């Protein structure tokens, strides 16, 4: 016969008898809409591969919104990285290539962060994935840890 005294019997029920009572804390205040802060950063680089290498240049947009976490202390930033103002030129055909986007990501807030994202690009005017290829964009970001704003950024672009 199993004589193990259950957890409920050992801990919970005596507390019940003692009448211990805990109640909810008050609600945290609601946050107002925060559109975040947008930073522009020059970016260029080459994605190699078939049918041709593509040389990209332009300006990346990084919108950073602070998501403060007073309860648990794990503050985050919600980043929207938009490469739609970056375009490429085919090394062989001189075809213009454009990038789709944006990419939205959540990152733990720290003084610095390295962010790598893949992105799709395709010859201008095409719509399907038949002509689309992936590239890789890398960002070295510095943050104001109080506001979540990007204070400095460098970027590079290459093959995934």
């Amino acid at each position, binding site marked *: 016969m199993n004589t193990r005294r259950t957890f409920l019997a050992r801990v*919970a029920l005596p507390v019940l008898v003692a009448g*211990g009572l805990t109640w909810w*804390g008050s609600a945290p205040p609601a*946050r107002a809409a925060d559109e975040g802060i947008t930073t522009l950063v020059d970016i260029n680089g080459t994605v190699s591969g078939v049918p041709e290498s593509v040389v990209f240049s332009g300006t990346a947009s990084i919108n950073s919104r*602070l998501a403060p976490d007073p309860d648990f202390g794990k503050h985050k930033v919600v980043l929207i990285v938009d490469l739609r103002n970056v375009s490429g030129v085919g090394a062989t055909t001189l075809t213009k290539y454009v990038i789709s986007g944006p990419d939205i990501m959540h990152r733990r807030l720290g003084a610095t962060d390295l962010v*790598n994202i*893949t992105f799709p690009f395709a010859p201008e005017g095409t719509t399907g*994935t038949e002509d689309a290829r992936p590239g890789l964009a890398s960002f070295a970001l510095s943050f104001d840890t109080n506001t979540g704003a990007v204070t400095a950024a460098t970027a590079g672009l290459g093959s*995934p």
Partner: protein
Amino acid sequence: MWLPKDASKRRIKEAENARRNRQEIIKARSIGQISRRDLLKWGLFTAGGALAWKQGLNPFVRSAYADDIPTGFARSPLFGVQAFTQPMPRHDVLPRFQDPLTRQWMFNTPAPQKEANTTQQPLDPALPGVVAGETGPIEGRPPGPIWAHQRWDEFLPRIGIEATQEGARVNNAYNPQVTSDHNSGIVAGNPFPPRFHPNLPDQALNTLWTFNGTLPPKLAIARYGEPVLFRHHNRLPANIAHNNGFGRHTISTHEHNGHHGAENDGFTGAYFFPNQFYDYHWPIVLAGHFSVNTDATDPRAGAPDGSGGIIKVPGDWRETMSTHWFHDHMFEHTAENVYKGNAAMFNLYSSLDRGNEAINDGVNLRLPSGTAKDFGNLEYDVNLMLADKAWDGDGQMQFDIFDRDGFLGDIVTVNLVYKPFFQVERRKYRFRILNGSVARFYKLSLSDGKPMTIIANDGNLLPKPVIVTRTDHIGIAERLDIVIDFTQWNVNDTVDLVNLAEHDNGREVKEDLSLSEALSGSQDDPGVGRFLRFHIVRNPSQPDLSQVPDVLIPNPDLSGIPVARERTFEFGRGADQPSNDPITASEGEWGIKTNGGSMLAANFGRIDAMPAFGTREIWHLENGGGGWDHPIHIHFEEGQILKRDGSSSKVPAWEKGRKDVYRLRPGGEVTITMQFRDWGGMFMEHCHNTTHEDHAMLMRWEINDGGAPFLRPLPTPIPRPQGVTFQNPIVLNGA
């Protein structure tokens, strides 16, 4: 939650002891022996809602041996099983019957009828509150005219579908409606056991409660203009304690994103008992059925006629929906029950999205599907249900209600099997992806970063396709339909689907990873990384006739419809519960603040909003904190996102279609607009992190048309095995 990879034996023992102690309480809670109020009184839940730091109970306690790394269950043992060594089963298609009003239904149950069938049957005294000799109705739907099927005579069911909810058993009738060469070699006629891998243990009878008690997960099929009667038989144990530690034997089946009368919505308080059935009447109409295109002249508002043509139907063609699912919505127990297997998918076919890629009639979008049948071809149209699970040392699924942030499993399953492979032809495929998890978000990429095309969000085709290499988060209950063109690879190549969203708790995503980080295997979250392998096995035997058109389904233009009212709902913690009703009122730290009022915990007897029938409103959905995320689901009507975080420019292209789940993001907010048309009754709005939902982040709203044809406000159903009774609702001031 899981222990770190390098956890010591001592630490694992501690956690196992804590788990065992928690399971005692979980079991007691699941069978109604103790309530949340009891747990509060005992101090086992803290003011913040967390599990108290009691030695021997909370696995996260900083014990003499522990550091501050969150831990929990020991990792699920794999019994030597390797990833990608089993084929992924396609969904099991539920049979469709053409004679729902005259056929012989399971268990000799009678023909469906407008009002609930209250024919009495003897009750099993094992049911709670039942004594020997008592009787109760055979149908669990609340009785009388209020819960009668709306417009029954106009939409008499033409298709019958039925399923049981029952404990795990071998599937001897698996029907994926594709041949084995489109099912990675799985032969449909062979027995399909209730296990997550051929080399993992069978799930015990009452560990897994699925539709028909079997795997793979089920798929229902319907087309517009073809009313469906779904009869759901509750064949779960009468004894509430026979649940292998978690899960509640009463259920309410929600047709997620269904545009039906509320009596068919799976209202959280309209649950039914073992040995009862519930008839859900799904008319399958386009929204705007009674106000737009009422003479049914537009072929874009239509359904496949079975022979290559179109049956035109009333309603707005821009409201066409494609990918639904249905799942349990039992008050306070949805997470447990859905986790336990109460989840199925539902494909809707229309003249625009008919599941035939060859018919070229100027309406059909010819999305990847197949050609053999007039509609509903599944060869290249694949349902994927993602769900994270955890199991104990015996390989039996386990669940932890004490994780009130949201339960996370350490094993990602696809179609309820562990990390499978799927054989594909070198052509385009459509994947209808459902996040069927409790609290886990997914962010998907292919393992080589190649592009894929998003065509639908929440089962609705977007205005135009969106090419991505990484998806946005797929929140719990969200659906994302993507097209992958496997001509990007060669025959015999493989490519994997990868999860980039790392969790360390169920509150929110810890961090989104780069592809290389996710593939590195260095994260503590076992849910990150590769989880489904595509193996390109051959060139297509027939030409790929499918397309991904540049224009799919534009949004309905609501700009000319006046905004009758704006409302604000804030989702957060610290909820109060003014009611002591033991049936309708829930206790939980999560809650909803309506229009700046108090943060209130769920009470399905309280009406928090009453939009007027036939109007349009704007709703602001706000996240009350930055330390958690909430995927908010609004039943019945689809909405359009107008703004994210106060800006229309922050609504990404893949969210510019119609939605029914709105991820708020930590500290974020979403502004949506929606109409209230066609049907009436009581509906819900809630967080679809089902742990948050079960811990009181849920509210009831009702469509108010001023009194006719719907009674207002509706009495609240109080289900009992002996029959449903009613009580007067509470109406929130200003609702």
